[in-house]
């Protein structure tokens, strides 16, 4: 597959090469190669069970991949090989931060505390084995004030500020999704991986999500990688899409290319489709995407 052209000529932040993840006899990811261009929004889509979440888990060190490599072009540290890093180092060193398909907040802690925990490493360092913290030294107090400012700043920008002192578990689902994104942002990511951020959101909320994602890339110069089933999000915001089916990459390209790709249509609408029906199916996917866009 010609990856360079698929990435649109932009220098890749992340290069996945021949990644394979096997669970016993099942290849959840099968020889996947894929580049994530820096400063863009890339999406991974595919039917249920295609291996998208497994891909994220391999990327972020939660699973040890069976074979293949994942490399990150870190602006300061050079090329990092992620497949050998434990999950917390992926977040800390490589600054790849992810969210989860089934939201994973700290439910009993308040929203603000959730965002402060995301800055654990910075604060822990400032607290010098907790000693500076125990004695309330000014250096620690300043670090904590900065952390709170940063958290409050993100809460404001994501319109969560009036929820700051509410336990995260008590919030409605859509708000929890936003809190999880805010928390990930507090961890200072280079690459933000979102696993189905629009799942469970109503149309208004997913419209707001679109705006947020575009703004993050434009204003924060973040690189985004999302898994999403909601075509109104995927087709409207992504620059670059990779389609998985049964762990294999079946297509890659811009939203327009993907919309018209016969393999993709087949994967989504079922294998037993006849050739002549494909035209109709393509039309249907297109119509759905366009309908969602308005």
């Amino acid at each position: 597959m010609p990856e360079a052209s698929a990435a649109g000529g932009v220098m890749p932040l992340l290069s996945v090469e021949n990644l394979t993840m096997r669970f016993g006899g099942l290849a959840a990811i099968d020889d996947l190669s894929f580049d994530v261009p820096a400063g863009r929004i890339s999406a991974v889509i595919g039917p249920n069970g295609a291996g998208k979440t497994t891909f994220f888990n391999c990327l972020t060190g939660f699973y040890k991949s069976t074979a293949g490599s994942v490399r990150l072009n870190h602006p300061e540290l050079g090329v990092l090989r992620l497949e050998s890093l434990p999950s917390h180092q992926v977040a800390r060193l490589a600054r790849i931060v992810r969210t989860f398909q089934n939201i994973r907040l700290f439910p009993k802690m308040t929203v603000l505390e959730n965002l402060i925990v995301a800055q654990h490493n910075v604060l822990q360092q400032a607290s010098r084995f907790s000693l500076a913290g125990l004695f309330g030294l000014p250096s620690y107090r300043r670090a904590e004030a900065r952390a709170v400012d940063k958290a409050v700043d993100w809460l404001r920008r994501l319109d969560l500020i009036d929820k700051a002192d509410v336990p995260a578990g008590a919030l409605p689902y859509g708000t929890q999704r936003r809190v999880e994104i805010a928390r990930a942002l507090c961890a200072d990511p280079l690459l933000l991986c979102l696993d189905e951020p629009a799942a469970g959101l109503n149309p208004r909320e997913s419209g707001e999500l679109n705006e947020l994602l575009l703004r993050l890339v434009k204003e924060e110069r973040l690189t985004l990688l999302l898994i999403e089933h909601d075509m109104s999000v995927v087709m409207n915001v992504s620059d670059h899409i990779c389609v998985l089916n049964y762990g294999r990459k079946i297509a890659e390209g811009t939203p327009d290319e993907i919309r018209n790709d016969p393999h993709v249509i087949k994967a989504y609408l079922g294998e037993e489709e006849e050739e002549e029906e494909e035209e109709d199916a393509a039309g249907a996917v297109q119509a759905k995407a366009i309908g969602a866009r308005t």
Partner: protein
Amino acid sequence: MPPLVSVGDAPTLVERGRDAAGIALIALLLGIPMIGLSTVDQSGALRVLTRWPLLGVFVAVAFCGRLLLRYALDRLKSRLRTRGRQAAAASARHGRVLTAVGWLAFALALVLPLVFADNRYVVDIATTVLIYVMLGWGLNVVVGLAGLLDLGHAAFYAVGAYAYALLATQFGWSFWAALPVAGLIAAVFGLALGWPCLRLRGDYLAIVTLGFGEIIRVVLVNWTELSGGPNGISSIPRPSFFGLPFAPSGNAPTFASSFGLEFSPMHRLIFLYYVILALSLLTNALVARLRRLPVGRAWEAMREDEIACRALGMNVTNVKLSAFALGAMLGGVAGVFFAARQGFISPESFTFNESAIILAIVVLGGMGSQLGVVLASLVLVLIPELGRDFSEYRMLLFGAAMILIMIWRPGGILAHREPTLRHAAAGGGHA
């Protein structure tokens, strides 16, 4: 026919009956050998006696008890569901009330030995309560904050006690010198336990910690040269008042002679009470402060979701080990105090029973709540004491009280969690 569809999850009478009948059946099966049949020693030979009426009562109690318990739990569930939302707003007020209660408890603790200066029994009980408070606060770090179920906390209590006993009897260390060292030794044992447990969670962790507690006890029983085996270690030196011993006036200056007081054995007891009070206040201050620091937040975050912690770049290994080490150290310090107070220790003081009571204090108090631990310690120490009049029904009373508390407040006596920082308090709330 009973209605086939039950509305929501309120079970029908028949469902309740069937559920209770199931329990009664189990009670019957268990009861036949345990209650229905009993053996008596009749002139050297064993004879089997049957006690069917008693068994009948037992089964009936199980049936009715199950009905009531189910009913209470269902009521509770529906009440919890209807509640919930408005909790956040009330939380700040709630926190202030608890702070006030805490200060009140502190003031009471401070004047208690002065009021009961000649009542040895009260001062002794109060000291015991404080030992459990201290043990509870130590375990609260591990179980309540970090969410690591530890069934072997008595092991660290034992390590602290034996460390002091050996340092004092073999090397002549004073109480105050041995206190931090024994605490550190216990912390090392905490790390030694934490290390193999890093990958374990929930039930598995509980089993390993349970085993660890037993290992320590069995080693103490069998390593006679070190620990004195089942005979324990006796004549452990008591703490002195900064060098002045509590003794009848002799040639050397004593506490009583230096302060121009009549010698009384109560002096030492009251002094010990204030020592453990000071130690536990120090513990409380330390834990309360740590909870507001990155480590403390990391403990709680790990309890809430370990995977999310890792995804945010937190090294959960360090977080877990720090919780184990601190909890163990506090347990060890309590052990030092215990050894100094008793003057005699043996492995019998550090059985699984002890671990279970400490855990019960944490759970009953409300996981993570410092004041809850105090209340639960009071309850768990006082109930058996008050229950002395009920002689053999004492433990029954104890168990019943625990069950009732858990039904009444499933999250513990004080389930309230005070946030470690508030946006509103920082002045941003009403801006």
